[in-house]
């Protein structure tokens, strides 16, 4: 596998690495910093690049570790109360006076899988991830995008599994609602 000169890395991989980091952190400045750190680490470890994978895969591998390190630190700096926020976030979606039925019942999305082929859909999808509270988005991406197992993710984030589950549930409820509002209820696409 050919290995390009470091001065070309930025041009060839910069945006891809940035996108990778941005949608897992939801913080532009931090994502840029991690891209920079990744390139520096890659520069130092250049000799160890065995060429078994593509250069891009190798760089993303470094970035992944940087991301997890960053989340490990930044999550612990926050008080747990702030992460869990208030119970009402879920409660408001249900009608306590009517057996906890949905206030706005989830609709039939008909043939949602079609949406995955639409560029416009992905724009909305990213906007919905961006609309999540930062910590929820980070926990969600650690588990769902990075593919960490629950226990592993809890170790990184320094929270109990039950807290992680609550955060994941909230993130899913919000994403679902956001997709319904901005994509699926807007008539035939």
């Amino acid at each position: 596998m050919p290995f390009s000169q470091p001065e070309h890395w930025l041009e060839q991989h910069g945006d891809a690495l940035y996108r990778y980091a941005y949608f897992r952190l939801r913080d532009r400045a931090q994502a840029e910093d991690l891209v920079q750190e990744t390139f520096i680490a890659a520069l130092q470890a250049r000799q160890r690049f065995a060429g078994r994978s593509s250069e891009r895969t190798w760089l993303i591998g470094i970035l992944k570790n940087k991301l997890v390190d960053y989340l490990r630190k930044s999550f612990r700096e926050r008080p747990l109360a702030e992460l869990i926020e208030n119970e009402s976030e879920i409660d408001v979606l249900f009608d306590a006076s009517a057996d906890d039925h949905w206030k706005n019942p989830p609709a039939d999305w008909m043939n949602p899988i079609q949406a995955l082929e639409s560029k416009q859909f992905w724009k909305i999808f990213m906007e919905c991830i961006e609309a999540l509270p930062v910590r929820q988005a980070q926990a969600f991406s650690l588990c769902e995008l990075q593919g960490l197992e629950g226990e592993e993710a809890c170790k990184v984030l320094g929270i109990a599994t039950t807290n992680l589950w609550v955060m994941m549930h909230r993130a899913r409820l919000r994403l679902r609602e956001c997709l319904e509002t901005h994509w699926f209820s807007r008539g035939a696409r």
Partner: protein
Amino acid sequence: MLTCKQTAQLVSLSYDKRLSWPEQLGVRIHLLFCDACRHFTRHMRFLREATRRFALEQPETDNHARLSPEAIERITLTLKQHG
């Protein structure tokens, strides 16, 4: 019988851990009678699939998908210093 709120919570939880037998049964029974929660269950399945695709393919869009010119300049400079 489970409420919609409890059912939604369990359906979501089933993506994080294996539900117990009584939990699975409770969800199934509720789904027999509840359109809204059946939709919700499909939405969760869709969400998992969309997220998986997103993680694999990194679809390109225009929102914040690029490094800013300032960042490019800064990183170029730093790489020179380390190179």
